[in-house]
């Protein structure tokens, strides 16, 4: 008798499974995007791509799932695959995944992997459909430092606070850790190369010639991050003002092998060959990373401006080499102003001017355009259907502050142009 009842219960459960699955599917929202671009520059390898030859290594694909678990609790995740030159290579990664408990409109909590709320567009930098331009102004949305600015694992507090006739403020506070998915490419490779160049400058003198320089065992470990943002939707229709702040810590280490030819002072004309193999440990604090933002939307015209500054406090220790340890602050600034206009449901155009300056890296005797980058961009976007679009974009650039030296071993050109085309679908 008991066995018969058990079988009946099991069968009932199995019959109900499709219904349960359907019920769950009915409650789960699924959305996604796919985009593919092509980029070509007149000079200078850019954004980890050999752009003078043209590159298709610019794409994103994402799918997300989310559901309301209870009346106040939501959960969801997004998987992202992207490629930008040597970075990403379409590895599937967890873009975000978190639980969101909305206690009140003015107070909610998030735990998990969360997109970092920095500036106006950081959280959506991979969603091509949400902007006019293919490339966000790199002076503020520097792809080179995406690793520590795009998402963090930790906790966040958020809310929207009405200001009783003076609009409302949307705020975020967060703390956690972040990953470095690509510690050996792009920005990090350039950083280690610069460290090696620094070591080279320490050992080189009138009688020493550097024959070869090897960088091995490079490692980047992220430590912690915390920050916040606040954006005021003002009572003036269409005007939004705000800012964000971030503080983070990470650790870099690398082994450098320097092979030198030393001219002997005892026996002129004869040479000695030596090597030195220091290990460099670098503590980096990302401090005073902030962006001030303003956006004004009237009718179909949107005007946006942002100013960004960040400081890296770098402490370098070494097992060898004179001249170390080194403590230095390096400041970088960037700003842009842009205008976009939607002419019809299917046509939008925009332009921006962007300026970047690696302020504390300027070297006497080196032209300033090595450390700055001025970018004038014009773009046009066609929404073929509500879910399919194509964009065309051109850039006139003065300076190579954001075109990494490690990506351009043959040298860089001051004045250069860039063209990009990209198509996206979203659902």
């Amino acid at each position, binding site marked *: 008798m008991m066995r018969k009842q058990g079988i009946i219960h099991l069968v009932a459960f199995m019959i109900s499974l499709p219904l349960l699955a359907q019920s769950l599917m009915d409650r789960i*929202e699924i*959305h996604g*995007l796919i985009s593919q671009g092509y980029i070509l520059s007149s000079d200078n390898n850019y954004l980890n791509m050999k752009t003078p030859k043209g590159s298709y290594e610019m794409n994103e694909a*994402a799918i*997300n799932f*989310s559901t*309301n678990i209870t*009346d106040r609790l*939501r959960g*969801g*995740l*997004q998987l992202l695959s992207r490629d930008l030159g040597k970075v990403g290579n379409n590895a599937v990664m967890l873009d*975000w995944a*978190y639980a*969101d408990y*909305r206690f*009140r*409109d003015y107070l909610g909590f998030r735990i998990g992997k969360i*997109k970092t709320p920095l500036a106006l567009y950081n*959280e*959506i930098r991979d*969603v091509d*459909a*949400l902007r006019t331009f293919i490339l966000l102004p790199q002076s503020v949305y520097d792809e080179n430092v995406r690793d520590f600015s795009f998402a963090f694992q930790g906790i966040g507090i958020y809310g*929207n606070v*009405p200001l009783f*006739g003076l609009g*409302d403020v*949307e705020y975020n506070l967060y703390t956690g850790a972040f990953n470095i998915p690509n510690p050996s490419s792009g920005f990090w490779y350039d950083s280690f190369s610069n460290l090696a160049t620094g070591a080279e400058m320490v050992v080189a003198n009138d009688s020493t010639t550097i024959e070869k320089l090897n960088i091995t065992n490079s490692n980047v470990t992220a430590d912690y991050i915390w920050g916040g943002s606040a954006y005021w939707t003002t009572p003036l*229709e*269409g005007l939004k003002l705000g800012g964000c702040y971030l503080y983070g810590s990470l650790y870099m280490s690398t082994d450098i092998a320097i092979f030198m030819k030393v001219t002997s002072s005892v026996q002129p004309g004869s040479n000695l060959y030596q090597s030195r193999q220091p290990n460099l440990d670098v503590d980096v604090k990302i401090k005073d990373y902030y962006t001030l933002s303003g956006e004004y*939307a009237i*009718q*179909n015209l*949107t005007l946006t401006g942002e100013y960004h500054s960040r400081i890296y406090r770098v402490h370098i220790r070494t097992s060898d080499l004179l001249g170390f340890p080194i403590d230095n602050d390096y400041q970088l600034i960037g700003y842009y102003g842009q205008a976009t206009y*939607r002419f019809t*449901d299917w046509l*939008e155009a925009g332009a921006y001017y962007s300026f970047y300056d690696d302020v504390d890296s300027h070297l006497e005797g080196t032209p300033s355009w090595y450390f700055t980058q001025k970018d004038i961009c014009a773009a046009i976007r066609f929404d073929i259907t*509500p879910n399919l679009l194509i964009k065309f974009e051109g850039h006139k650039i003065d300076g190579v502050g954001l075109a990494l030296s490690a990506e351009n071993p043959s040298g860089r050109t001051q004045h250069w142009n860039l063209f990009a085309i990209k198509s996206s679908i*979203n659902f």
Partner: protein
Amino acid sequence: MRMCIFLLILIGFMLFLPLIAQNNYIIIVNKSAQGESLNRGNVESIFLGKKSRWSDGTKIIPVNLKQGEVHESFIKEVVRKSTNAYMNYWRKMIFTGKGVMPISFEDEKEVVEYINRTEGAIGYISSLSLLKGNEYVKEISLTD
């Protein structure tokens, strides 16, 4: 000179012409929210997901039309966004995991029927005549 002034006036008129209130929508709610006092700012917050609860704690369910003149007027005049900007706002919420697009219908009759059976729901339609037979749906007027 006169031509310049004329052109400036004409351009200014064309820019501000759409701002002249067309107000071809009425706002409706499920009877459970009938006693609520709402101004334009409250409704804007509701349709942007910033205000999620009625005063008694019931969850607010905003309901959109998918397209049409009534939808465009409401989004422009109450939510203060273009329909493209409104769509992009919710796409941002979706692709950052912060929310889901409000439920939307092609037909005003479907909007009324949904609000009629859903506690806490609020939406907009063109005519009160559509409410006939739906006893749990009421018009709500916005306070100043």
